[in-house]
């Protein structure tokens, strides 16, 4: 069942169209990420879900209830803000218990709930701290506990890990994911970090300029990008323009620079012979070697970049100035720039973009 339905929602700020005709369905209990570059409208979309902004067009349905005109304090959602928004005049306990004023719970019950919430986010023992006595990661946990204690149906998170250092961030990614599986509520998670979105989500949406570019599982998004924006935003990718030579129902035969004539699975809209198409292939789907194999092509190494667990080789064909990137893990060779190498690939890894 669809837990959240966003139906053709648009939101403008003066001239700026922050969210442009967005439609997404999010399932119950799903970890759903919104990914996109800065200023693409992720926060605005989240604020539309939380009720801080009302859509100019379209509607939002959460848990079967139409949300247009429903103010934030009456929605079954809670939010973890990018700045955490911890109340500075209250200690951790009072912050976490903030939303329980009208709950009708006794003092003892509230204390109990606070204790549970703090245990959930691994912050027991910090009850009496003020917000200025907490580290970034601890503040983030307080914000999380404060939202979770409300037992929301949907938790909205706006780049909650953005302010943390890399190591803490990776720890929190795992913890957050574990927590979500443990409590089983729907998470809508905003991030501009593609790796974060890929590792954490059940499904994700890639946004660009207020428009949803693609919705799918991380694997679909990574392996089958539909547009240039998605392909280039997620990870490193080689983009090549080719011309369709012939077509069958299952495959297109395309003439590409460097690669020559290749057969590519035909998944998108119909393509005419002679049309120009954009093809992409990930650097890690290419392999590189010092000697030719039966299906390899000779290239010249331009430069290489070492990244620890992998090395990127930027190469070009002898008769072309187009460069492509190949990545290799644990490469033992350290060839000189200008040396002749051989690349090979599996044509099933080549993807034709829809646009």
């Amino acid at each position, binding site marked *: 069942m669809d837990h959240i339905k966003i139906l053709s929602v648009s939101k403008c700020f003066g001239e700026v169209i922050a969210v442009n005709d967005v439609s997404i369905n999010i399932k119950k209990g799903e970890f759903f990420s919104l990914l996109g570059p800065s200023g693409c409208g992720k926060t605005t979309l989240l604020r539309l879900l939380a009720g801080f902004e009302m859509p100019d067009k379209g509607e939002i349905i959460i848990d079967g209830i139409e949300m247009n005109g429903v103010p934030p304090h009456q929605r079954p959602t809670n*939010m973890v803000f990018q700045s955490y928004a911890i*109340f500075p005049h209250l200690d951790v306990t009072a912050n976490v218990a903030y939303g329980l004023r009208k709950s009708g719970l006794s003092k003892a019950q509230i204390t109990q709930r606070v204790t549970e919430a703090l245990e959930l986010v691994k912050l027991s023992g910090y009850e009496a701290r003020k917000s200025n006595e907490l580290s970034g990661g601890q503040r983030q946990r307080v914000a999380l506990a404060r939202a979770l204690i*409300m037992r929301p149906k949907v938790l909205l998170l706006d780049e909650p890990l953005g302010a943390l250092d890399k190591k803490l961030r990776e720890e929190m990614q795992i913890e957050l994911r574990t927590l979500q599986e443990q409590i089983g509520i729907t998470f809508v998670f905003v991030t501009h970090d593609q790796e974060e979105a890929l590792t954490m989500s059940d499904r994700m949406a890639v946004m660009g300029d207020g428009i949803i570019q693609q919705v799918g599982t991380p694997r679909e998004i990574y392996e089958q990008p539909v547009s240039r924006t998605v392909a280039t935003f997620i990870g490193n990718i080689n983009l090549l323009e080719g011309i369709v030579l012939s077509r069958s129902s299952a495959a297109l035969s395309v003439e590409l620079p460097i690669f020559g004539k290749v057969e590519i699975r035909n998944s998108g809209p119909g393509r005419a012979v002679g049309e120009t198409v954009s093809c992409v292939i990930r650097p890690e789907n290419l392999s590189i070697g010092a000697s030719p194999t039966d299906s390899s092509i000779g290239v010249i190494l331009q430069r290489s970049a070492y990244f620890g667990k992998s090395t990127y080789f930027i190469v070009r064909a002898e008769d072309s100035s187009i460069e492509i990137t190949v990545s290799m893990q644990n490469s033992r060779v350290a060839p000189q720039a200008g040396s002749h190498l051989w690349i090979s690939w599996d044509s099933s890894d080549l993807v034709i973009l829809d646009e």
Partner: protein
Amino acid sequence: MKNTSRSLLVYAFIYLGFLYIPVLFLPLFSFNNSMYFSFPLSGFTFEWYREMFRNEAMHQSLFNSIRVGGFVALFSTILGIFGAKAITRYRMRGKKPVLAIIMLPLVIPEIIVAVALLIFILQAGGSLSLLSVALGHVLLCVPFSIAVLISRFEGFDQSMEEASADLGENSWWTFWRVTFPVVLPGIVASLLLCFTISFDEFIVAYFLSGTEPTLPVYMWNQLRFPKLLPGVLALGACILLASFIVIAFAEWIRQRNNNMALRQSLASMTSKIR
């Protein structure tokens, strides 16, 4: 290097002396047993303080000033809260011109404001009273109140109010549980500032006070009767002492809070190390 710091020190002393020595004449002459302010001092007396306690009219004017000051502080600060919140929180048309008009009394000479108000009140058929003084003072104080409060409102993260709404509170409760406590230091500052401005404001009070003088107006009237003047000096000395105590107390509270925050952060640091 040493020379510059010494000359700076000398400068600071001259500066402070210039500021405060005239003020110190007030308590000095209030203990002098002569009606005339001249050296050498003729002798020590508590007479003027006794006189001050006997002078009913002076008490009345002091009381008037306190009442007007209290009203002005409260009223201007409430208006200031509304104004500052609207200016910092809402998108609206014509915000800049409205703000400019509110701030105008800061740059208009007070005498103009006073005369204008006098004409207006008399034309409108109103009568001069402490209320008219208070309303005039509110006009003068609101810009100060707004200026103090805007910086406080701007300085705090708006998403805290949104977080409160998100956690189920409507805007009224959000104001009481989040906005008010966070801007409280600004509110206290505004109350004190407005009270002080009203308490020693003379021109508007002189024009609008009718038969009930505020303290500055009363003092000014006394200047014509040398016999009564030393009593005014005694009162001035008392007010000076009172302001000194209030300021020292406020500073002590601030220091104590700072120390507390410091001690707490030290404690949290040591607990982390352990």
